[in-house]
């Protein structure tokens, strides 16, 4: 054996790059094996150099690349010398780590296919389910696997056929009176049973009240990753699901992965993904399953359902044209100007949170983070400054028009067309012009893609 003295390869120490940390919640500190990181009051790391061994674990987990390795000039010199002698071995992972990873990959490969949960109430499907089949088809194609729907309910077999029309090639069906009304326990137990039996790789659920209630329970029971409110879904070069979602109230976007468990679960809000084209000639295979639990075990009961939908209530999320007003409308009466324009264009009137809080518009018209997410063909924002909470609810609209007196209002940053001016003058001018055109015997239509 050679007994040559080896120069130790300097590893340096971690240091924070000023201004880059976003106080994500102490991921770096949590990853540090040597207690070399303390967090300050602002939630930024302080590196205790004496403890740092330069292992780079904190660099790997930092989502904004706010940490780097600092090497003293002497250390850099040694590194350069070592490199010259070609004695620097690449940083090797311990062999057991590689084995562990290989074993994990084998386990993950057992899971195949993309599943979409079909949400329904009394046999009536939620539109978001079909939207998910659209993006689900892209993911299935990228993974070269099949797209399946999961239909659970009472007298819901027709939804299997409908899911084929929207792109699924297989439907898992559990049809039983026990599922007549949605309750967390029977539904999540049914889904966990199907997942354990058929092992899907990806499962998508609509981010509705029902979907969030269900997905949270399913992911916990299966001990797998769940990413809420995704606005982008794609497959990376390793075949993993890249889930992009707004965080921090929409101020930043985060791309999230579920690396070690399956299925990879994601919820998506309604109207975020486009509805796929229908093909009524498509057929698929129905896989029927039995109820996997005793009905007597379900102790939760729905005593009463109170339908509060008033006749003629407007659903802004379903409209192709939305004329929306904010605090810049200045008074409740001025919303009639928006109604007139909306009537001429065949649209509906929406609202910002500010206008709802001022009592100018009812809460069900509110667009935004705490209101509805909309994706119309045309969104006209009148006197809305464009707080981030509003933008996250409408920024996926096909065309956005912003009318605002303040040329620096953030709404102009998402607008396709902007007019800087007084809404109370511009909106009536628009209405008048549309009226003139209609008087010539022509009807405005929104283009349907």
């Amino acid at each position, binding site marked *: 054996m050679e007994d040559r003295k080896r120069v130790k390869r300097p590893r340096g120490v971690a240091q924070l790059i000023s201004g880059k940390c976003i106080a994500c919640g102490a991921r770096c500190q*949590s990853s540090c094996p040597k207690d070399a990181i303390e967090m300050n009051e602002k939630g930024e790391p302080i590196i205790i150099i004496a403890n740092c061994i330069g292992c780079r674990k904190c660099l790997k987990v930092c989502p904004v690349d706010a940490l780097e390795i600092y090497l003293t000039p002497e250390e850099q010199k040694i590194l350069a010398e070592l490199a010259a002698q070609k004695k620097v071995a690449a940083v090797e992972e311990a062999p057991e780590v590689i084995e562990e990873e290989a074993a994990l990959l084998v386990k993950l490969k057992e899971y195949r296919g993309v599943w979409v949960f079909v949400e329904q109430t009394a046999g009536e499907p939620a539109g978001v389910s079909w939207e998910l089949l659209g993006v689900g088809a892209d993911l299935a194609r990228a993974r070269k696997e099949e797209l399946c729907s999961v239909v659970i309910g009472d007298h819901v077999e027709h939804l299997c056929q409908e899911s084929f029309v929207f792109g699924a090639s297989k439907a898992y069906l559990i049809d039983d009176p026990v599922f007549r009304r949605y309750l967390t326990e029977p539904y999540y137990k049914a889904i966990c049973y199907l997942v354990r039996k058929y092992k899907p790789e990806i499962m998508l659920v609509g981010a509705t009240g029902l979907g969030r209630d269900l997905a949270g329970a399913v992911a916990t029971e299966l001990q797998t990753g769940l990413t809420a409110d995704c606005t982008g879904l794609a497959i990376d070069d390793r075949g993993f699901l890249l889930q992009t979602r707004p965080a921090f109230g929409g101020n930043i976007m985060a791309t999230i992965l579920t690396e070690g468990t399956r299925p990879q679960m994601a919820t998506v809000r309604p109207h975020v993904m486009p509805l796929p084209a229908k093909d009524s000639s498509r057929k698929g295979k129905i896989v029927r399953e039995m109820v996997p639990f005793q009905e007597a075990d379900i102790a*939760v009961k*729905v005593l009463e359902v109170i339908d509060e939908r008033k006749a003629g209530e407007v659903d802004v999320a379903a409209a192709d044209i939305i004329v929306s007003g904010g605090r810049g409308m200045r008074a409740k009466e001025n919303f009639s100007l928006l109604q007139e324009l909306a009537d001429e264009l065949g649209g509906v009137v929406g609202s910002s949170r500010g206008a709802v809080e001022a009592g100018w518009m009812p809460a069900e018209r509110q667009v935004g983070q705490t209101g509805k997410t909309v994706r119309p063909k045309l969104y006209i924002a009148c006197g809305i400054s464009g707080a981030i909470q509003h933008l996250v609810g409408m920024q996926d609209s096909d065309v956005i028009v912003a009318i605002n007196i303040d040329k620096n209002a953030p709404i102009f940053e998402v607008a396709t067309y902007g007019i800087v001016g007084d809404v109370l003058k511009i909106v009536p001018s628009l209405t008048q012009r549309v009226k003139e055109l209609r008087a010539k015997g022509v009807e405005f239509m929104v283009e349907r893609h």
Partner: protein
Amino acid sequence: MLVVACIKQVPDTTQVEIDPVTGTLKREGVPFIMNPFDAHALEESLRLKDRYGFRVVVISMGPPNTEITLRKSLALGADEAVLLSDRAFGGADTLATSFVLAEAIKRLNQKDEVVAVICGRQTIDGDTAQVGPGIATRLAFSQLTLVDRIENIDLTAKKVIVRRKVGSWREKVEAPLPALIAVVREINHLRYPTLPRRLMAEKAPVSLWDNQEMKLDENRVGLKGSATQVRRIFSPERAKGEILGDGLNEPEEAANLLLENLIEKDVLYFNSSS
């Protein structure tokens, strides 16, 4: 008997801005607040205390300065506050978070029976609404989300009746106790702390449960116990649009220009058949 309120201290995201030059988050001076949804969870717990005489224990997982928010909940009327804080708990996703919270609730339950756990619908920084269902599933409690009224708690029959706001309708649900109840903001109006309580809260103890105390498997908490990994964080991309005309001085002309553009780009078009 005990009601546990789960709260989180969050940055006030309505005050966060993006630096237009660097594209990074400007956090200078952004205050930490009690998650607004959780404030209603705490309020509802205090109302249950008023109605049924339960003790209210507030728990929160977070960095050491979360103590400030926990102290505020004592000032509002909570009987006890427990801070779950350890460097091993940091970087947790909802799966790892619900694990630590559920284990803390189990510990509380050993001393005094937990009737209900109340949490807010979601947080304003994460917006996931996943931690509540996570706690319910882990503890095998009845899961009741989107609750806008707690109608009745029957301790003899061990049942709770709540009203849930689901989409455009509401439903009344009866469930066995103990239950996890996630509330919407409309459920109640918040109270304000009284001066004597506020003075009392300043000196009141906040228990710290770190992992020496809780002895949880380090592979199930924090970053290591998280099933999801944040790969990248970035600023949303936005395409800059076009400002049309001089709306300030020529509103009619600007309106005309807009309609011309919408028609030219086929957003609106004439239907000559009608």
